[in-house]
C-alpha cells in the first residue's frame, strides 16, 4: 500500500507540471538568433515602451523586402508574419526598428 501511495504521489507531481509547449509563445521572439517560421505564424515581441515601430523583412544580402509600420505598446505584443509570397526565399531577417530609425532587434527567420 505504501508503494502504491508513493507511485500515485509521483504521478500527481508529474501530472501537475507546466505545459512547456504553451510557454514558448511567452518568450520574446527576438530572444533567439534564428527562428523557424511558417506562414501566418503569430509571434510575440516585447517592446520597451508605447511608440511607433517598424518591422522589416530584409534579404540575406541586405535588400529590403517589406516594411510594416505599427503602433506598439510596452510589453508583449502579438504580430503575425506572412511568408507565403516569399516563394523563392529560404531565409530572411526580421528586424525591429524604433521610430527614430534605430534597429532594436534582429532574428534570422528560416522559412518552413
Amino acid at each position, binding site marked *: 500500500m505504501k508503494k502504491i501511495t508513493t507511485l500515485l504521489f509521483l504521478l500527481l507531481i508529474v501530472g501537475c507540471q507546466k505545459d512547456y509547449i504553451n510557454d514558448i509563445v511567452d518568450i520574446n521572439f527576438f530572444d533567439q538568433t534564428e527562428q523557424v517560421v511558417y506562414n501566418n505564424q503569430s509571434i510575440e515581441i516585447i517592446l520597451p515602451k508605447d511608440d511607433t515601430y517598424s518591422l522589416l*523583412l530584409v534579404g540575406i544580402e541586405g535588400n*529590403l523586402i*517589406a516594411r*510594416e509600420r*505599427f503602433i506598439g505598446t510596452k510589453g508583449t505584443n502579438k504580430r503575425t*508574419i*506572412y511568408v507565403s509570397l*516569399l516563394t523563392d526565399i529560404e531565409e530572411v531577417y526580421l528586424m525591429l526598428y524604433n521610430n527614430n530609425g534605430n534597429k532594436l532587434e534582429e532574428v534570422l527567420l528560416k522559412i518552413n
Partner: protein
Amino acid sequence: MKQLLYFIVITAMGMSKSVRQALVQTYFISLMLIPTFGLAQFSGPSDSDTSDREAGASLVWLGTPSNASESVSNIRVGDTIVLGIKISSYNASKTSIDYAHIDVQIDKRLYTYQNETFNSEVSNNSQFVGPNAKMQWSNNHDHYDIWDQWQNGTYVTDSNYEIHHYQTSDTSVDGNEVETLDWYVKFQLKVNAFDEDYDYTDGVVITMGRTSVVQSGAEVLLDPLYAYPNQDFSNEPVQAAPTFANTVANDGQNAVKYKSFKINDYASNGGNSEYGDHPSNSAGFDAMFDYGNKKTTTWTHQGRDTATKAFTWPWSNILPRHANTNFGWIIEGYFVPPTSGTYKFQLTSDDRSDFWFDANDNGTITNTGMGMGNGSRDVDVTNLTAGVSYKFRVRYEQGAGGANLYLKWKSPEDVAAGADWAFNANSIYSIDADDVTVTMDYTINYNIDSDITATDFSVKTYYESGTNQFTANSGQSAVTLASNGSADISDQIDTDFSKVQHVVFDEPSSTELATTAAAAVTAADVYLAFQELTDKGINNNETGNKFTHGIQYVNADIDKDGDFDFDDTFVMLDWLNGGTEFSLTNLSSVMRLIETSAYNSVASTAIGNYTTTSKFPLGLTNGTTTYTKNITVSWLGDVNLSHSPTPTNNLSVTGMTINNAPSMSNKRMYMISGKEIEIYIENEIKDGKVHAKVRTINAGIPIGALQLKLIYDKEVLKYNQHTFDTGATDFNNVTENHISFGSLKTEDGAINNQSIYEFVFDTLKPIDSSLGLILFEVIEAVTTDNEQVNILIQ
C-alpha cells in the same frame, strides 16, 4: 510438288544419259526462272553408273536463311547459304530407312561453317567433325560410290578442309522413313572471298555415307549408296562482288547506279574470245557482261555516282573502270520528266551502247531499239507523265581508241521551242524518286534576345495544306531551341518538295505568353514611343528623332495598321493599364520573325512589310540538302528593343539627319547610366484597411518613365483603391494578385522628384499585422534621355 520431283528423278533413271541431262538442265533452268519453286532436290542422277544403285544421297539447295527460294546466281561473297542432305531409296524392298550417316567435306577457304539443324521428324541425331581433314579417295571405287568409299576410303590431314559427319537413327518417328524427308539435316555456310575464278560448288562435297533399313529385326544396308552428280551442289562459279562505292552518299537526285566490267580479256581464256569485240546486238551485250559465265569478263567496280559523271564526258570525269580500254558499264537510274508528253532521247557513244526504258512504269524495262552506235541515235518515248519515275538502263562498251558516252533529251516543250538536245541531272534519280529519303541538314539560328529564354521555346515543321491552313508533318517531334537559339530541324522536314513547309513555334501557355509580353512591353517602351511622336518622328518625315533603327517603328506599330502614330501609344498606355486594346491572343500576334539580314536593314518607311508571325517558310530547293537559316526574333511593342536584338545597321534616311543617334551597333537600345534612384516602401494598418505606400526619391535625376510591381496576398487582401501623385501620366493595371503601376511623362519635363503611389486594400479576414502581405518589385526606370536607371528599394 514433291511427288512431281520424285517423278522427274525416277523417270529420268530410265532414260538415256543425254535425255536425262537435258531433263536435269531444264529442271535447273526452271528453278532459276521460278524463284518461288521452293524446296528442290538440287542434284539428280546423271551418270549411268548409278543404275545399279539402291539408295542415293544428294545435296539439296535450300537458298539462304531468309529466303529458301534464293537463286544460286544471286549468291555473293559474304552471303550465307543453306544446304541439306536428302536420302532416297530406289530399292522397293528396302524402304523405311531408319539409319543414315553422310559425310560432307567443306573447303574452309571458300566457306565458313555456321551450324546444322536436323529435321524435327528424325531422332537420335549426332554430328562430329573431323577438323583439318580431307577425303583420301579409294580409287578402286567411283568417288560417288560413297558406300564403298566408306568401306575403303580414308581421311588425311589438310588444314584447308573439314569433314562433317551427319548421323541419324530414326527409330520412332513416322515409321522410320528417312527417305520421305526433303532433307534430314541442313547446314549453313558463309561464303568467303577466295578466288573469283574458283568453282565454289566444288567446296562442298559428299564423300562417304551409309544407309540401312530394318528387316526381320536386322539392319540391312542399301548398297551401293551413291552421291550424284559429282557430289557437289552446282556448276556455277561464284565471283566476288566488288565493293559498292558510294561516291554519291545517298540515293536520290543526280545519281545513278553502275556496274563496271573488264571485257575482252582474252588472256584469261587462252587467247580465245567468248563474244564479239563490240556487241552488234542486245545479245552481244548480254554475253559481254555475263561475268558469271565468261572468263573474258570480270566485274571490277560497282557503286553509286552522279548522273553527270555517267552521261557527260571527258575522260577526266567518268565512271570507274579498270583501264581506259576494254571496259564496259551497265548504268541504271530513273528518269523523272518534269512535264508530261513525248520525250526524245539521244544516246551518243564511242564505242557501242544501247538504251532501255520502262516506258509503262510497270517494272518491265525494254530495249528502246535505238541501235547500238557508234555515234548518235535518238528515240521517242511517248506518254510519259510528269513526276513519275521511269527506270532506264544504258549499256556501254569501250574497246580501244576514241571513247565517249552522252545521254541527252528534249521535253515536249523543248521540241516545240526548237531547243537543242540537253542533259539535266535533276531529272535523273538512282532510285524511284518516291522512295528517295533525303538526308536534310537544316539548322535555324534564331537570333533571340538574351533576356528571352530560348530554351522555353520549341518549334515544329508544318506544310501548307490549304489557304491559310497548316498541317504538321507526320512523324515529327518538337525541337526545343538551344540556349543560343539554334534549332536543328533536319529530321522534321517532309522532303516532298511539292509541300510548302514552314517551321512554326509551339504555342506557349497564355500565362507564359502574357509574361513574355509583359516583360517586352513596359513603360520605357511607351515613353520612348511618346518621345518619338513628340519629337515628330521619322515616319512623319520630320526631324528630332528618338528611334535609331527601322525595326523600332515596326515594333511600335502596335495596332498593326502600317503606321506609327498616337493610336499606337494609346494602345500601349492601355496595355500598361491592363486594357485589352493590345491584341495578345497567341504567339503569332506578338512575335515577329525576320531573316536576320533583312532585320538589320529595316527601313523606317516599311512598317507594313513586316507582320507578326510565329512561322517561317523553309524555302526548300530541289537538289539542295544543306540549309542554314538565320532569323531574328523581335516582339511587337518592344519599342526600345530591350527584348529584341539590336540591328547591326543604324537607321539612315536619305536627306535627313538623325539627331543624337549614337552608334548602336551590337549594343542594347537602352543604356545603363549608372544612376540610381530610391523608392521608400511601407505598409500600415489603418482603420481596418492595409495601406501600402511607395515614395520615390529621384535625387534630381529627371525620370521620364517608371514602372513597378506590387504583389499582394489575395487570400488576405482585396484591392480597394489607389492614389498617385507624380506629375505625370500614370498607369495602374490591377490583376488577381499583383498590380503593375507607374508613370511616364508624355510631355516635356520629368516625373516628380518625390512621387507618391499609395494603395488601399480591404482585408478578407481579421489581421493584426500586414508584414509580408505586400511585396514590391522593381521593373524599370529611364531618364528623359532614355537612359536606364537603377532602382533601390529602401
